């Protein structure tokens, strides 16, 4: 009996040793990046892949909860915004260490802000903190308090810290020392990135167990969506962060428990007419495009419901404007999507002297209404949408010539040469705050796409938008900001410089063994709570 017990004990110990000896990848979450990250430096992130790495490895002072859309304390346990957004005082969490064991101090926060705002670095994250002439300063006030002072008030200041991954001033590993749940352990360019669990990560669960639950995250670099789907179906991947509607439907038909529709996201599809005064297009066409009635008529002729149903298989909603209802605070709830209204559209056109005769719409000068619509090649959803718009407008006698261009050629036309008439593209909102769109709505901005970089606003309504955007950016009170931005949304809805088409739903797929998954509409839709995700390896295989 004794022998048997010893044998059993030895067996159990051996088993335990064997498990300990297994590679960390046994409990590794596997999913895809569509491209190689351009940088691992958190201050220099511009692309989505680098943003993923920053999200999974970076420790931030304040995190925007992707579910509640509210800021929550992380490395800062509390904060006070002072002087109407010119100063912020942060009280820091104590006893936190970087992934290499270096202690986290207030000096690290000051160092991070210095790096971010260093003009030589040209950090895109740092740019969002620039509020006026002069430089921001970060003053360390004791071991757990730091105050950052900006030259002018920064609107939406608290949310901006969601993008700021704290760097270590003292660690010899420099930016490779991180405060997030994982650190970069291995990178094989073009193949994969292995992130391993940061054993110094400060968060614990209710039972005191140190997070994250996962041992590792393996990111496969796979640009092809079809291959991603194939590998997910084979069980090689655990997660697809964003899945196309047609694949979603197909997967849903076979295995409905694998797919998740988090509802309408902040991503929208829109079209606009070129209103640039120096554009090399005929004057009469410029006059059409600059006419509110023409733009509103085009908007009223598009059947958005059909686009949602056919192009997005029902996983989209007709778009209202700048922000969709998914942006709970900033969305102007009084607005509704432009409705399909054939007769109304014709009435608006007739007000401007257009006449529909023999199936051809002609302007006041008798010229047939015809324009080209450019979009990027290789995006089947957008091409289908363009074909539907072409068909919808043809019913009112408007001829649309669709031109698909490779992306660099398209960008060249819409940003430099302005040799185009109308453009169909998508717009990805990554920021809930309207300040993130200052470079779109100010008439002087380069991304004021229908008529960029105006020395002075060319229309009264653009001047009004300029005024309101600056007002909301400088207002310390959220209610005043909201009132100003509500008015901006109303003007945009009325004038239709952008004709908003649809808001796409946030679609994802994950294996059933992925515990803690709560897909949301904000990026990163599925792994925003990565530290709480765990894998039940017995269920983690995908559909085979």
């Amino acid at each position, binding site marked *: 009996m004794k022998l048997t017990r010893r044998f059993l004990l030895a067996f159990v110990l051996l088993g335990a040793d064997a498990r300990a000896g297994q590679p960390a990848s046994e409990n590794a979450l596997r999913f895809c990046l569509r491209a190689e990250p351009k940088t691992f430096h958190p201050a220099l992130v511009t692309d989505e892949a680098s943003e993923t790495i920053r999200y999974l490895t970076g420790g931030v002072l304040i995190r925007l909860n992707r579910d509640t859309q509210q800021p929550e304390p992380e490395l800062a346990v509390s904060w006070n915004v002072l002087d109407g957004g010119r100063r912020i005082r942060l009280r820091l969490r104590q006893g936190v260490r970087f992934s290499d064991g270096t202690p986290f101090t207030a000096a690290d926060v000051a160092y991070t802000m210095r790096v971010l705002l260093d003009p030589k670095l040209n950090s895109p994250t740092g740019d969002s903190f620039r509020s006026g002439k002069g430089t921001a300063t970060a003053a360390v006030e004791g071991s757990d308090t730091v105050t950052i002072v900006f030259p002018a008030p920064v609107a939406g200041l608290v949310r901006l810290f969601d993008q700021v991954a704290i760097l270590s001033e003292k660690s010899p590993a420099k930016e490779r020392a991180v405060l997030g749940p994982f650190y970069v352990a291995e990178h094989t360019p073009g193949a994969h990135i292995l992130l391993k669990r940061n054993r110094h990560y400060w968060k614990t669960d209710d039972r005191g167990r140190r997070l994250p639950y996962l041992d590792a995250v393996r990111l496969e670099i796979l640009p092809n969506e079809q291959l991603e789907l194939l590998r997910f179906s084979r069980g090689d991947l655990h997660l697809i962060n964003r899945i196309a509607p047609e694949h979603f439907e197909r997967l849903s038909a076979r295995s409905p428990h694998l797919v998740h529709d988090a509802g309408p996201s902040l991503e929208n599809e829109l079209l606009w007419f070129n209103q640039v005064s120096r554009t090399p297009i005929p004057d009469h066409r410029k006059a059409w495009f600059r006419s509110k009635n023409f733009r509103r008529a085009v908007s009223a002729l598009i059947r958005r419901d059909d686009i949602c149903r056919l192009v997005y298989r029902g996983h989209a909603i007709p778009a209202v404007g700048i922000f969709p209802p998914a942006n709970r605070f900033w969305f102007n709830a009084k607005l509704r999507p432009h409705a399909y209204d054939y007769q109304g559209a014709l009435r608006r056109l007739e007000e401007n002297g257009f006449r529909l005769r023999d199936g051809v719409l002609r302007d006041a000068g008798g010229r047939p209404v015809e324009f080209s619509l450019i979009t990027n090649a290789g995006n089947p959803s957008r091409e289908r949408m363009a074909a539907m718009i072409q068909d919808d407008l043809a019913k009112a006698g408007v001829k649309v010539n669709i031109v*698909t261009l490779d992306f660099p050629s398209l960008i060249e036309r819409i940003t430099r040469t302005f040799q185009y008439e109308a453009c169909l593209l998508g717009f990805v909102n990554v920021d809930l705050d309207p300040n993130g769109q200052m470079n779109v709505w100010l008439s002087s901005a380069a991304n004021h796409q229908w008529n960029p970089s105006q020395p002075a606003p060319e229309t009264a309504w653009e001047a009004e938008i300029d005024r309101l955007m600056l007002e909301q950016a400088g207002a310390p009170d959220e209610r005043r900001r909201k009132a100003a931005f509500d008015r901006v949304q109303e003007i945009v809805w009325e004038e239709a410089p952008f004709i908003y088409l649809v808001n796409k739903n946030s679609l994802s797929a994950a294996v059933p063994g992925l515990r803690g998954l709560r897909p949301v509409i904000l990026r990163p839709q599925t792994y925003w709570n990565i530290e709480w995700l765990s894998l039940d390896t017995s269920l983690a295989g995908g559909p085979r």
Partner: protein
Amino acid sequence: MKWVRRAALVVLVAVFGISLFVDVIAPQPYARQNREVAGEPPSADYPLGTDDLGRDRLSRLLYGARISLLLALAAAALSVSIAAGIGITAGAAGGRVERWLMQATDLFLSLPWLFLLLAVRALLPLNVSPHTSVAITFALLGCLGWAASARVMRAGVRALSDSAFALQARACGCSRTRLFLVHMLPNLRPVLLAQFWISLPVFVLAEANLGMLGLGVAEPLPSWGTLLRELENLPAVTDSPWLLAPAALLVLVVSCLQLSFCREGVST
């Protein structure tokens, strides 16, 4: 093997015939969007089903055949004409002219034609009708596809110039023009024909490649290239095998072209 060639010829005649009379044969206009029946499987009303916008797949396939085949023919004719002009001039003139022309041909051959095509296409005016756009695309294909054929033509002319009958004609005092038109051109016909039939499937496939990249024929016109794009969605193809119809027709036509004409051209 004669019966195989005959069968291939019959298939080709049938496909070309259908594509010529497609306005009468096609059950629906190719651009009509019946949005209430989008994505339907084959039925009596829609023998190959409907696409994502509710357009009849069979009609689009037939119209696509007309566009791809007829314009590929035109592009092949254009390309072979340019190749003949350059190759024959080079071969007949010899010396510096030949060297310059062949160097230009080599330079053209070394260019990445797909990127060249994309660049040229991006510079074209936007506001043209789909029909003009498709004609421009194939004209570009024709203008960019002559170089390899030009080399073959020049080699043919050189070989004929050195032949005994050409030497004898020159010895008899035959002028260069007469020598070329009466004696050499008829002997170049097989080479010209072979180049024409070889380049035809190349242009059909080139348009299909452009279509796969989304840079082919503009909406709402169908072509084999645009129809083949649906094959990108592999899971959809396994569930809906009728999506393979354009690919099957393309393979059939290209195979029949090879069987019927390429041997004919070379062996004539």
